[in-house]
């Protein structure tokens, strides 16, 4: 309740004094949805550098990574963002899954331990965010409980949400299924890896952040 009130007061003050604020933007979603790929794309577009490493093995990002003062310009408007790339949220983490991907046992166990801490950290950071982009893999089932819980928690905190259906370059991608699952939210289909539809993404981002 206090957060909602604080956000409302911030919004009123910002609009009154036209202050250029640092919008805290969180990238959330299940593991391997492409959060870091999108974070890297944004950072490359506006800072000319990457944010973090990406991997085919889940839970590559195991702690919240923050990049400050990213100025994004669009149609004579500019907004400054503080972007937080968060670890993928999951309800299960089994080190044996990492063994199957070829990691050694001690490395797999460490990765699992760090991943559990990462999930906790990501959820704790929710309260810090002004807006959140939920990054989903458009080839996967959107009705998973993790997706619903993330979006439900954001709604409960009154945090504006933009849903990104990533990996639209893949054949199995199904943007319509994600739109049908979350009809009350704007869903933008992109391929962060291949720079597809990023213009639409920035347009939607400005619509909820501006």
């Amino acid at each position, binding site marked *: 309740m206090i957060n909602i009130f604080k956000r409302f007061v911030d919004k009123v003050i910002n609009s009154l004094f036209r202050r250029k604020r640092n919008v805290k933007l969180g990238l959330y979603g299940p593991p391997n949805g492409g959060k870091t790929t999108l974070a890297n794309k944004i950072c490359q577009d506006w800072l000319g550098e990457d944010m973090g490493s990406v991997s085919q093995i889940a839970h590559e990002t195991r702690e919240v990574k923050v990049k400050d003062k990213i100025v994004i310009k669009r149609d004579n408007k500019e907004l400054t963002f503080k972007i937080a790339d968060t670890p993928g949220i999951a*309800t299960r983490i089994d080190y044996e899954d990492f063994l199957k991907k070829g990691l050694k046992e001690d490395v797999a*166990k460490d990765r*699992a331990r760090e991943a*559990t801490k990462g999930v*906790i950290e990501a959820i704790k950071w929710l309260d810090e965010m002004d807006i959140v982009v939920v990054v989903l893999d458009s080839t996967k*089932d959107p009705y998973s*409980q993790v997706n*619903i819980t993330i979006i439900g928690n954001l709604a409960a905190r009154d945090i504006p949400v933009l849903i990104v259906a990533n990996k639209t370059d893949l054949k199995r991608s199904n943007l319509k299924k994600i739109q049908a699952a979350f009809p009350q939210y704007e869903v933008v289909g992109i391929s962060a890896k291949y720079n597809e539809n990023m213009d639409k993404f920035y347009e939607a981002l400005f619509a909820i952040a501006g």
Partner: protein
Amino acid sequence: MITMQFMPYSEIEKMDSSSRIKKILGMAKKDKIVLLQGRLTKKEEGELIMKTMEEIDEKFHGIELSIIYPENGANGIVSKMKNGFANFMLGERQGLTIVGPASIVKEIKKNPRMIQLLTNEPKRTKKAKAKTKKRR
């Protein structure tokens, strides 16, 4: 053998959030699939995930969670009003929550009209494997 335990909402109604989560997670850790009448609040769902992460070790690999919300599929104005009224009267008593240990529940598939609980193949011990060999 898979054990499913039904829990009426009255069992957790008067508990605070952390006690509710502790109870549900405790049952999942005992390899039981919990069918809870009603649902947790959105924040409690987040807390359940955090608590689950704290408990994960080499034996306990987490949970599979699925919540059926009563408002799913309500499109018309009348249906929405009915749901709104039911929500006001019953609160979190509506719906169904399924929580199972990841070692047993492989996946809970859900779409607005159907829910499927897929279990893992039980891990066979060396003794069991030897028995099968002997029979052959």
